[in-house]
C-alpha cells in the first residue's frame, strides 16, 4: 500500500488510515506525513478536475443554456437581449409556420440515416469477414479500406459533389455507359439522399469493418474448429458463430452510427453548394442539423435553433433508451 515509508503507521491500509498512530514523533516527520495524506486525498480530485471544469464550462452550462434559450426569442445580431416566448419556438416547429420544414427535416434525418447506416454496416460486416481470411497483402487491404477515414467531411463531400455533378460528373458518365439517362442528382429527393449517403458510406465503411475485424479476432478459434468438425460451411460459421459472438460490437456500431446519422450536417451542407445551408433548393435533403444551422445562423432565430437542438437531444435520449432495452433483452435471451 501507499504509505509504508512511515514506520509508525499501523497496518498496511495506510491510504485510508485517518487516525493518528499513538506515538508519532513530532516535527518534520509529522509534517511530511500530513503532506502525504493531502497528497493521497487530494490528488485524485486534482487529476480529474480539468475534465470536469471543461465539461462544466463547455458541456453542462451550454446544455442548460440551450434549454433556457429555447424558450426565448434571441437574435443572432443582438445575442444579449432574450425575450421570453414560452413554448412558441416548439409550437412553431411542431404545428406553426416552420412545421413543414421541421417534419420534412425529421423525415430526411431518418431516411438519410437508414440509407447511410444500414448498407454501411452490412458491407463492413462482410468485408471484416473477408479480411479475417488468411490473405496476401492483408496490411495493405486494411490500410486502403481505412484511408477514407483520414479525409475530412469537407474534402470528401466536395469531391463527391463533383462526381455527382449534373454537368460532366463521373456518376452520370458511368450511367451513360449503361445507356441510362443523366440524373440531376442534387435536385431529386431520393437521388440527392442517395448521393449523400454514398459519401457517408465511403468515409465510414472501412472504419466499421476494422472494428468488426478486431471483434472477430477475439472469437475463440475452438468455436470455428468445432463448427467445421460438425460440417458447417464458411457461411454457416459466419451465421452461427461469428454473428452471435459479435452481437455487442454490432450493437455498439449501430448506436454510434445512429448518433452520427442523427447529427448529420457537413455532408448535406456542402453537397448543396449555394443552397446547402437549407438542405437543397427544395429542402429535399435538409436534416435536423441543417435546420438548426439554418434557423439559427441564417434566419437569425437562435431561440428556435436551440429548440431544434433540444429536440435532437431528446431523440438521442430516446435512442439510448431503446438501446438499453434491446441490450437487456439480448442479455436475458442468452
Amino acid at each position, binding site marked *: 500500500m*501507499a*504509505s509504508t*515509508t512511515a514506520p509508525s503507521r499501523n497496518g498496511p491500509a495506510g*491510504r485510508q488510515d485517518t487516525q493518528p498512530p499513538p506515538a508519532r514523533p513530532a516535527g518534520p516527520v509529522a509534517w511530511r506525513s500530513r503532506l*502525504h495524506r493531502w*497528497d493521497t486525498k487530494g490528488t*485524485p480530485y486534482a487529476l*480529474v478536475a*480539468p475534465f470536469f471544469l*471543461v*465539461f462544466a*464550462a*463547455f458541456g453542462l452550462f*451550454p*446544455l442548460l*443554456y440551450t434549454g433556457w*434559450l429555447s424558450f426565448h426569442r434571441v437574435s443572432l445580431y443582438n*445575442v444579449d437581449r432574450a425575450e421570453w416566448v414560452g413554448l412558441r419556438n416548439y409550437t412553431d416547429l411542431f404545428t406553426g409556420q416552420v412545421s413543414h420544414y421541421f417534419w420534412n427535416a425529421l423525415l430526411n434525418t431518418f431516411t438519410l440515416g437508414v440509407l447511410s447506416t444500414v448498407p454501411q454496416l452490412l458491407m463492413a460486416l462482410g468485408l471484416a469477414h*473477408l479480411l479475417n*481470411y488468411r490473405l496476401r497483402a492483408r496490411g495493405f*487491404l486494411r490500410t*486502403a479500406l*481505412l*484511408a477514407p477515414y483520414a479525409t475530412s467531411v*469537407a*474534402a*470528401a463531400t*466536395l*469531391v*463527391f*459533389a*463533383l462526381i455527382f455533378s449534373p*454537368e460532366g460528373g*463521373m456518376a452520370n*458518365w458511368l450511367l451513360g455507359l449503361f445507356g441510362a439517362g443523366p440524373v440531376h442528382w442534387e435536385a431529386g429527393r431520393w437521388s440527392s439522399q442517395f448521393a449523400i449517403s454514398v459519401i457517408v458510406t*465511403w468515409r465510414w*465503411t472501412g472504419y466499421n469493418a476494422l*472494428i468488426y475485424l*478486431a471483434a*472477430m*479476432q477475439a472469437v475463440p478459434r475452438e468455436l470455428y474448429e468445432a463448427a*467445421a468438425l460438425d460440417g458447417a460451411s464458411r457461411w454457416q460459421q459466419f451465421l452461427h458463430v461469428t454473428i452471435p459472438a459479435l452481437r455487442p460490437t454490432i450493437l*455498439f456500431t449501430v448506436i454510434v452510427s445512429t448518433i452520427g446519422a442523427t*447529427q448529420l*450536417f*457537413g455532408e448535406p451542407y*456542402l453537397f448543396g*453548394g*449555394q443552397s446547402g445551408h437549407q438542405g437543397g433548393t427544395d429542402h429535399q435533403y435538409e436534416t435536423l*442539423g441543417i435546420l*438548426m444551422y439554418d434557423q*439559427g*445562423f441564417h434566419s437569425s432565430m*437562435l431561440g428556435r*435553433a*436551440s429548440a*431544434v*437542438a433540444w429536440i435532437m*437531444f431528446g431523440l*438521442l435520449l430516446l435512442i439510448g433508451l431503446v438501446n438499453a432495452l434491446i441490450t437487456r433483452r439480448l442479455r436475458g435471451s442468452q
Partner: protein
Amino acid sequence: MTTTASVPESRHHAATRPSARAGRAGGQHRAGRIAHIVLALAALASLFPLYWTLVAASTDSHAVVSSPPPMLPGGNLFDNLGYVWHNAGGRGMGVALLNSTFVAGAVTVSTVTFSVLAGYAFAKLRFRGKKVLLGLVLSTLAVPAQLSVVPLFILTKNLGLGNHLGALILPVLVTAFGVFFMRQFLSQALPSELLEAARVDGANSLRVIWHVVFPVARPAMAVLGMLTFVQSWNDFLWPIIVMNGSTNPTVQVALAGLGTGWSTDWSVITAGALMGTLPLLLVFALFGRHIVGGITQGAIKG
C-alpha cells in the same frame, strides 16, 4: 492492438485435417480467391476517389467536367495548388493549414495530457464519489455537438473570441472519450505493484505520475493523440459557425468557402480538397498501423 494477431483460420484447419474431403478444400480455395477479389474491389472503391481528387486537381476547369472524365493527371496541378495556396479562405490555404495545425496540435497535447491524468485517477486511485464521477464522464459521451453550439457562439462573442482560434481549442481541451480511453488502457496496462513500489520508495504523486504513469501510458497516448488530431483537424460544425466569414480560417472553413462560393471551378475546389487532405494522409501513411490499432482498441469497450 489485436489486429496484428493471427487470424482464426478454419480454412487452414479444414485443409490440413485428414478428414477434410478434397472437394471441400478446393471450395475453400475458391472462397479465398473470391475474398481477394471482393476486397480488392473494396480497396479500389476506397482509394479511387482519393486518386481522382489528384486527377481533377491537375486539370483545368473545362477538362475536369468533360466526358469521358479524365483518368490521368493533367499538367495544371501546381497552378491550381498555387491558386488555393494564395487565395482560399481569404488569405490562402497556407495560412489555413498553419491555423489547423496549431489548433489540432494544441487540442491534441491538451487532450492527451489531461486524459492520462484523469484516466489514471479513475483506473488506479481510490476516492470518494469516483463511481458517480465516472458515470458522469460516460454519460457526456452521447451529448451531441449541436446542443452546445448556440450558447457557445454567444459565449465566445461575449468573451471577444469570435473568429478567434482559441474558440476552437477551449471547448475540447479534454474529452470524455479521451478520459475513458485512458482509463480502459491504464486499468489493464499499469500494474498496481509498480505504483506501490514507487510509493515505497517515497515518491509523491507527481513523481509517480511523471516516472511511472506517463511512461506506461505512452503507446495509448500515441494512439489517442492521432485519433484526436484527426478528429480536430476534420471538425466541421463548430468551426463553420464560429469562424463564419473569418479571414483567418482553418482548413475546413476555407474548403467550405471554396465549395459554397459563387464560382464552381472544380479543378480549384479539388485542389483545395487535395491540399486539405494531404497532411492527414501523410500522418496516416506514417502511423496508419497505429491508427488501425487505436480504432480497434477504442471500440471494444470493457
